[in-house]
């Protein structure tokens, strides 16, 4: 079974702190994603990566950065946490599709619930 793990289930940080959220997958997937989940808004893509050291902005990248130094690990960084970044953060991974695209399944981690005070 695919396993996607996230470093923390719950996190409490202060405004202005630098926050690292870590995600690790064990299935050698090329693609990794960071979403945030907010009530009434569903999941929104922050960043994704399709290879080591490669990244692309999603729909809401402002205030976030990412790092992918190894294939299995994808980190989300909040450079200076703000209260409006209080949310549930979900990491996902998937294998890469063919050049014409494919509906490869995304596998999700358990989520990190972040509270910024």
């Amino acid at each position: 079974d695919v396993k996607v793990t996230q470093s923390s289930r719950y996190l409490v940080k202060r405004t202005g702190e630098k926050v690292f959220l870590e995600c690790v997958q064990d299935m050698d997937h090329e693609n990794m994603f960071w979403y945030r989940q907010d009530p009434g808004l569903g999941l929104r893509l922050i960043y994704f990566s399709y290879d080591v050291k490669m990244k692309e902005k999603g729909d809401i990248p402002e205030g976030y950065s990412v790092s992918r130094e190894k294939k299995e690990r994808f980190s989300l960084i909040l450079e200076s946490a703000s209260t409006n970044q209080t949310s549930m953060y979900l990491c996902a991974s998937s294998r890469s599709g063919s050049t014409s695209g494919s509906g490869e399944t995304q596998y999700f981690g358990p989520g990190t619930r972040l509270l910024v005070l």
Partner: protein
Amino acid sequence: AQTVTQSQPEMSVQEAETVTLSCTYDTSESDYYLFWYKQPPSRQMILVIRQEAYKQQNATENRFSVNFQKAAKSFSLKISDSQLGDAAMYFCAYRSAFTQYGNKLVFGAGTILRVKS
């Protein structure tokens, strides 16, 4: 840009009964994938069912089936013989078949399904 709309914030069903969750989407593309994901309380999100837009036949997975109406851009999920374990948040998601858009999913806001015993 593609959008996904789930118009039912909450639904309830009696155990052993059938329930249908609605999803509509907006796209100008002709080839894409549609997904239903389930997020149980405090547990990881998992894929329930997926549909390729080029396939006319509706996907089924045991008690779960979809009604895919491409012209109407509608993708509803039917759960038959509902069980207590079906209680969860359900998300409808869209993915382009064209890799220029990456592999990202566009999610609806979600529908909370409650199952009554």
